[in-house]
């Protein structure tokens, strides 16, 4: 029995190896079994789906090329997008950091006297800690993605990019809902749990004053959003409330709607392992379809705001070694295929927002704190994720780079200096005593041989 129960929030920011160890303990004790089962099913489905794509490799090349070009041309694309959104009758805002993004969204909500809002799953909104800020303004914030709904009830950070509650077994969800919602309704099957959440959330959708979504891609030529989902919660979030706010990092911008094409099948195959998920929306808000007065608030006109976020991305784009991370389309194939992730999930192998091997760079870039990439230690460099990545990111390469920077940032310990003196002929490198020992194992072995008679004597 562990002496004290750690909550996932406490170990979200992994600033030190000590916190990382506690996180690993938590993950192994309570989350590992569910993560193992769920990543396995993601993997089996992905193998099938990608094998069924007649041009899987060509799609990957095309997707990579689009992302590379878009990143080079980011300044022009952002400018073009802002013009398109304005031309469509929407409002465009470029937020340099999380604080600016939150403030803008809070101001829009205040102006509209928003009392309750519904949210589609958005990792970017997790990244800027949006919910807390809105709740402090007295707004009821309802996460409508069922996994996010679970996490909101549990007050936990996501443990996976597309299945944020991947660490929850059906049994643990039942126990959580019983405790949190104090209900006697039957909650002992997936159907019952889903029905319970659906009935609660349907009321919230129709009563909401605003909807907040992310975007899988955004097109600069006409301000279209690509939104991929299965539960229909994003479709409802976009259409039911009169006010729609979308939040996206600038790395999601591509030149035109035509560039959505390769990503549509590639994302579905890589993410959930389906030909397509139930709903892939291509929309250009504000929608033309009239607002139905579900709220009983009288007639309303639609309003749309697009918030495009930097928050460390520009610095990342200028970082020759790490900029590749910006090509990520958040499919999670790398997480599911990773041996360490399969055992730990993203609470062990991840930070406050982003998880897995790709998450270390994202966590460091969006927080501006290199030390929060400490969980990159869990990448063994085996490179099993590389062929799974739809945009061919060298994730182990990113982690090698992060670790080398992390090591440089920590002063050498006395033990490490001693070990270096004893074993290494090369110039002093930043590493722990343990790492130096194993890096120069052959020399250590020679010392060992030298002293063998001595140890035999004793």
């Amino acid at each position, binding site marked *: 029995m562990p002496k004290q129960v750690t909550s996932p929030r406490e170990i979200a920011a992994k600033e030190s190896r000590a916190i990382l160890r506690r996180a690993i303990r938590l993950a192994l004790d309570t989350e590992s079994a569910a993560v193992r089962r769920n990543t396995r099913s993601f993997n089996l489905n992905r193998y099938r789906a990608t094998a069924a794509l007649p041009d899987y490799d060509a799609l990957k090349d095309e997707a990579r090329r689009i992302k590379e070009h878009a990143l080079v041309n980011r300044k022009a694309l952002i400018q073009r997008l802002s013009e398109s959104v304005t031309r469509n009758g929407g409002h465009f805002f470029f937020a340099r950091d999380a604080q600016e993004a939150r403030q803008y969204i809070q101001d829009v909500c205040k102006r509209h006297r928003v009392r309750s809002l519904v949210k589609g799953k958005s990792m970017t909104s997790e990244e800027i800690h949006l919910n807390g800020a809105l709740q402090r303004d007295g707004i009821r914030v309802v996460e409508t993605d*069922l996994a996010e709904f679970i996490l909101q009830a549990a007050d936990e950070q996501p443990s996976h990019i597309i299945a944020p509650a991947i660490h929850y077994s*059906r049994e643990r969800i039942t126990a959580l809902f019983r405790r949190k919602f104090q209900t006697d309704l039957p909650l002992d099957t997936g*159907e019952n749990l889903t029905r319970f959440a659906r009935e609660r959330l349907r009321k919230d*959708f129709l009563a909401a004053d605003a909807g907040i979504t992310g975007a899988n891609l955004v097109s600069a030529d006409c301000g279209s959003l690509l939104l991929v989902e299965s539960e*229909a919660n994003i479709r409802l979030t976009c259409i039911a409330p009169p006010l729609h706010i979308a939040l996206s990092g600038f790395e999601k911008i591509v030149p035109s709607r035509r560039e959505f094409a390769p990503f549509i099948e590639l994302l579905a195959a890589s993410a959930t392992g389906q030909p397509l998920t139930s709903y892939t929306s291509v929309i250009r808000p504000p929608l033309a*379809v009239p607002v139905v007065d579900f709220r009983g608030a009288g007639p309303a006109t639609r309003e749309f705001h697009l918030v495009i976020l930097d928050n460390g991305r520009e610095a990342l784009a200028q970082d020759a070694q790490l900029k590749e991370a910006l090509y990520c389309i958040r499919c999670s194939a790398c997480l599911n295929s990773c041996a360490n992730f399969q055992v730990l999930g993203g609470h062990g192998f991840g930070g406050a927002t982003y998880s897995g091997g790709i998450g270390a760079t994202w966590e460091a870039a969006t927080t501006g704190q290199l030390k929060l990439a400490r969980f990159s230690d869990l990448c063994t460099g085996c490179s099993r994720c590389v062929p799974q990545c739809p945009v061919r990111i060298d994730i182990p390469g990113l982690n090698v780079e992060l670790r080398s920077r992390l090591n440089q940032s920590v002063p050498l310990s006395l033990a490490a200096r001693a070990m270096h003196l004893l074993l290494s002929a090369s110039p002093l490198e930043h590493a722990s005593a343990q790492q130096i020992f194993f890096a120069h194992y052959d020399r250590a072995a020679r010392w060992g041989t030298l002293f063998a008679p001595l140890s035999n004597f004793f």
Partner: protein
Amino acid sequence: MELVARSPEAVRDAVLARASAKRPILIAEPRYLSPDYFRPLRSEEGVLRNPNAADYRSAPVGVTEAFAAVARTGSVCVDIDADIAGYVSLLPHLHIVVVDIDRLVFRPADLFRLEQFARPTYHRNFVFISGPSATADMGPLVRGVHGPHELHIMVLC
């Protein structure tokens, strides 16, 4: 999915058979198909003309057209701002979608390759619908979450 003859009466009969006793039925006015296809259906009892908020909340069946269908992914493409299709394809338990076989393409990318797609006004707001709403977040796969629990495609040919 079923194949239906290209006649308004055949569409009416197929929809009524599928909806069985469920009423009311909501219909979105088609933008690409001839409006004639839904005309006989509109005069049936329990088919609503101008639904209000309460009707949207309770109607169990919605009928829309699709402007395209995608063979490889089993998808239909619905313009959500064609009349009230955005709601009709989303809120009811059963979504029946009617698409002409001439509108069939093989892959999603085939639609984006069309010359017209570069025009900003061409299908401003649409959705590839590839099944009923579904989730695996509660453990096993569950069909029927916030959108339709059932998707039925009628292919006119």
